[in-house]
């Protein structure tokens, strides 16, 4: 069994709220492994802590507690100075390429910066490396002399990916890399990421709220709610048979772009509460249609529900964790009837 490149254990990250004494519990005791060549998808809604986890892993934030073992070192507590050389091993791609790049630097220099910082190549060798990287991400060379505001969103995200690749990192964190891109451009970026992973075997942490994208690119999935892992497992298993009630509701809320798919929506009540006053026990208890008394006693442990597939719900033990049993689903048939009935009328 090959050694995981990243081992995160009980990661906790709290921020000070704007009112004095108020604490934002962004991440609460999250643990996961990331193996070389694997893509781990982090899925969750706003306030789930997925972006914070990504930023803790690349040490843009210093974790409040817990450990992050990268290779053989725990990087959760080392100083910025010690972290800097390690940064070439672990890179990050942000959501909005326009705000992630220095507007006053040419694209070529933006990519070249990474090469300059982490290698001792001389200028010509660096230029060669930059041109190679640009070709690798399907960017034509004449864009290298342009400034970021002259490029489209898709092209700029390719520049960011080229920057992340420049130092042949072992791990790349992708924080909603395609969320601010249009559909057709997004497909190109996802394909590029797949291509690069197959070639370089780099491990990827893919963070997104877009379920379909995560399902396409991820080998394993981590479903997060209010800073805690509620379910984790292989992508097919989690998407096919989600065990945790929240995961079931979340995955069922997805809208496949195909009118013939019958929806089986589990509509939740209310919204994700603010991460300031966490409810006792399972964070989802207040909104969960299946919640019962012992849900609020303590945070349910991640119980196994299949091969390498776990979910944190007390009801898994007695198999009563199917959310559909709570109330009649409001999906499928009604939609279909409504659309057919209308189509006939106008032709």
């Amino acid at each position: 069994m090959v050694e995981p490149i990243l081992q995160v254990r009980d990661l906790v990250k709290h921020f000070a709220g704007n009112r004095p004494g108020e604490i934002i519990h962004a991440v609460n005791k999250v643990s996961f492994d990331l193996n070389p060549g694997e893509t781990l998808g982090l899925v969750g809604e706003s306030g789930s802590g997925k972006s914070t986890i990504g930023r803790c892993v690349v040490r843009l934030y210093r974790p409040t507690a817990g450990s992050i073992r990268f290779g053989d070192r725990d990087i959760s507590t080392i100083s910025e100075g010690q972290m800097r050389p390690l940064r070439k091993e672990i890179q990050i791609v942000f959501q909005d390429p326009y705000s992630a790049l220095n507007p006053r630097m040419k694209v070529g220099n933006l990519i070249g910066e990474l090469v300059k910082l982490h290698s001792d190549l001389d200028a010509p060798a660096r230029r060669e490396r930059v041109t190679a990287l640009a070709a690798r991400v399907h960017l034509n060379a004449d864009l290298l002399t342009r400034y970021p505001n002259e490029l489209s969103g898709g092209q700029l995200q390719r520049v960011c990916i080229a920057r992340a690749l420049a130092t042949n990192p072992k791990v790349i964190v992708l924080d909603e890399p395609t969320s601010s891109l249009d559909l057709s451009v997004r497909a190109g970026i996802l394909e590029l990421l797949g291509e690069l992973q197959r070639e370089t075997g780099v491990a990827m942490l893919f963070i997104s709220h877009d379920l379909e994208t995560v399902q396409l690119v991820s080998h394993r999935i981590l479903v997060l709610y209010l800073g805690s892992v509620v379910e984790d497992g292989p992508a097919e298993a989690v998407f096919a048979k989600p065990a945790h009630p929240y995961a079931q509701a979340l995955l069922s809320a997805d809208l496949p772009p195909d009118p013939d798919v019958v929806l089986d929506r589990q509509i939740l009540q209310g919204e994700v509460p603010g991460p300031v006053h966490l409810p006792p026990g399972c964070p989802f208890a207040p909104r969960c249609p299946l919640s019962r008394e012992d849900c609020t006693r303590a945070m349910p442990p991640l119980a196994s529900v299949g091969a390498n597939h776990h979910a944190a719900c007390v009801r898994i033990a007695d198999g009563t964790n199917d959310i559909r049993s709570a109330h009649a689903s409001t999906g499928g048939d009604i939609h279909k009837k409504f659309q057919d009935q209308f189509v006939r009328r106008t032709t």
Partner: protein
Amino acid sequence: MTDTSIDRSAAVGFTTSGRILGIARRSPTFAIGFAIVTAFAFVAIFADLISPYGAIETFSRQVLQPPGVEFFFGADGNGMDVFSRVMYGARYAFGIAVPAATLMLLIGVPLGLVAGYKGGVLDEVVLRIMDVLRSFPSIVLALAVVSATGQSLINVILVIGFLDAPIFARLVRSEVLALRSSGFIESAVAAGNPTWRILFVHLMPNAIRGSTAMIAVRMAWAVRISATLAFIGVGIQAPTPEWGAMIRQGAEFVISGEWWVALFPGAALVGIVLGFNLLGDGLQDLLDPRRKATGK
């Protein structure tokens, strides 16, 4: 969603006259301000050549002669030509504004950069200085300092420069905080940039761009303050052809009807300060991303 209607045809059809007209149409205040400041700069540089008389050349027989053919702006109390002295005065205006602005930049920018980026103790200190200065009107402070430390030109420049540095530091600091929230600092850190590179390669060029408009406005303020100091008799003293001092000299004669001695230096002062202010306001329009006319 990003604004993707990128206009590639802007580079085509560039002509200097077209560009000047374009800028003037986009921001008339900038155009007028630029014209005024260049005119004063021209006068300041070539004062020796174009002024009819020397700066302190006295004509005892023509004391307080009203404006006419011989003395365009009339003569002052000591029989000196007001017109020539106003021209030489332009040198003092730039002589104070430019060094004060440089001083303000040299101190303000690094202070603002580090305070904005590092935060923590230094940020607190800068903020505290700001609070003290904010509730401590700058005119009085300048007066107290100059009157205490002596009235040489260097002193006035130093006082104005040091007084203005914290104000400029605060502007740079707010630009830095805005840049921090925009995320490209985070990506610079994640790329492995050492702090000095983040400060001077990434932060400074962008922060400077944001505060260039402010430099012109602060230069306008510097000229005004130095003239005020001279007028009150604390800054540069007669017979140096500094406008503030000339107005002070002219003040006595206003009551007795010789209006021209105080009028013309004052008008020149208003002119150049207005020029700088227009330049600053215009720059604000041109550099302000929100007002660019690319439609969605």
